[in-house]
């Protein structure tokens, strides 16, 4: 209802809007095909995931839909079709590069490696890579991992942080690999691995969704600090400008805090679980000084 009211007001204000410049890149494609294609994740809670009605929802999805509204306003196309396309961490970059999706809204880290192929908006989340352990295991720091097994998810770079620290602290750690986050968490839950290293928000949401959240604890130093951004095609200044302007508007107006609390500090679908992770200082900083610096 609220979104409809905003859209209606915006359309009324810009009813006679005319293009001031030629459209290029993604905006041109969107204009020509009358469709904007959004890539979403199926289980990146709480950024982009399917709720109990199999509808993609989440913190990143809300931000993306605000960008979609801004695109509709800019192109003066209130009836622009929005096409939602599921992606995985393997397919998101190829699908972006070949034009299947125009924006990717999930939990994609803004990294220099990725910037070789795609571009990112200003960061809307900052995560630290830490580890989850069983609360009664007594593991508090990296050195407690000596002689134990540590699991990470295949395809993520979390294992190299352990390896780098391994060399630094002469640890003997067995590296295990889970096929996805759920399997990696299962390995810790069943006792196969002593720790699961991953972005702290993913760990917090896995703990919140588990059968006995009290059994787990997130411990250890921040092995890496990673910003998330909306992914888009490279060398495409127009769509980036729209996305950045939208995000900056949301952050500066306090809407960003409201959105954060909606997804991180309140019960969320599908099971009305509350992740209960207060906003980190790094994220407060990123909202106060929007930037798209990658790691």
């Amino acid at each position, binding site marked *: 209802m609220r979104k409809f009211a905003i859209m209606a007001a915006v359309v009324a204000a810009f009813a006679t809007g005319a293009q001031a410049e030629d459209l290029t890149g993604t905006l041109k494609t969107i204009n020509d095909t009358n469709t904007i294609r959004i890539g979403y994740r199926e289980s990146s809670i709480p950024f982009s995931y399917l709720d109990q009605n199999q509808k993609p929802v989440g913190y990143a999805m809300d931000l993306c839909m605000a960008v979609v509204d801004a695109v509709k306003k800019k192109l003066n196309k209130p009836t622009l079709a929005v096409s939602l396309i599921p992606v995985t961490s393997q397919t998101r970059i*190829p699908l972006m590069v070949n034009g299947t999706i125009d924006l990717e809204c999930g939990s994609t880290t803004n990294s220099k490696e990725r910037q070789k192929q795609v571009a990112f908006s200003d960061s809307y989340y900052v995560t630290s890579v830490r580890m989850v352990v069983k609360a009664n295991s007594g593991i508090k720091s990296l050195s407690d991992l000596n002689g134990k097994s540590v699991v990470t998810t295949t395809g993520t770079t979390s294992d190299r942080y352990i390896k780098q620290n391994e060399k630094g602290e002469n640890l003997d750690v067995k590296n295990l690999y889970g096929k996805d986050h759920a399997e990696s968490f299962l390995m810790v839950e069943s006792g196969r691995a002593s720790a699961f290293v991953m972005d702290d928000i993913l760990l917090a949401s896995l703990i919140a969704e588990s059968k006995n959240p009290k059994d787990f604890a997130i411990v250890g130093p921040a092995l890496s600090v990673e910003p998330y951004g909306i992914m888009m095609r490279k060398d495409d200044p127009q769509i980036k400008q729209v996305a950045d302007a939208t995000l900056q508007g949301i952050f500066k107006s306090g809407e960003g805090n409201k959105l954060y609390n909606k997804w991180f500090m309140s019960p969320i679908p599908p099971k009305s679980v509350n992740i209960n992770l207060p906003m980190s200082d790094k994220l407060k900083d990123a909202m106060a000084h929007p930037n798209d610096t990658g790691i």
Partner: protein
Amino acid sequence: MFKYQWDWGIILSEVPGTDGEYYYQWLIKGFELTLSVALSAWILALILGAIIGTARTAPSKWLSWPATIYVEVFRNIPLLAQLFFWFFALPELLPTAAGDWMKQRMPYPEFIIGTLGLGLFTAARVAEQVRTGILALPRGQKNAGLAMGFTLTQTYRYVLLPNAFRIIIPPLTSEFMNMFKNSAVTYGIGLTELYFQLRQITGDYAPGNIIEVTAYVTLIYLVMAFIVNRGMAWVERKVAIPGTIGGKR
């Protein structure tokens, strides 16, 4: 608007964040593991499959029924489900001490479970091939063997099985090639073989070069399967008995 940035030399590049590690080293490690798990599982599958396939054709119900049950169970459950059972479910079903040993202290758990899962799965299929080979022989062969004074066991050993194995070398080659392809499924339990390395490299390390790395890995799998194919063709020629189906015309 296909703006993919090609980089065919990606596998020769150094892994960012490490000191002197290159992507092709990861592929080699993966290749070695694929080879080991596929060959170990094949030996298991061949031996177990031959026994079970033969047992299915035996006149004694005590032999043929357990064999049939084995084949039906292991053929009808997908390989990944079987691997997950051995890796995740079995330790929970065993008594706590045994389960903990399986989870924490077993050496090379992924390799052993991978070999076990692959071997048991393929053994069911090999058993069917062996049974087919035996049934394809003319009925007169068994009767002639018995008439000559052989016991049933001796008839199998000296008359039926040698011929049956030679007949089924082509479908057995298929199974052997499948073994190498199915070994990719063991990435699901964390075995760091070739497909795992593909997922690892094209995940966060080199996400921009998925097409090139996939092409290289596909090539490696193709070459492995081709070598198996040609190797088995050579075996077929070497063991052919002149005058029988596989022999010289």
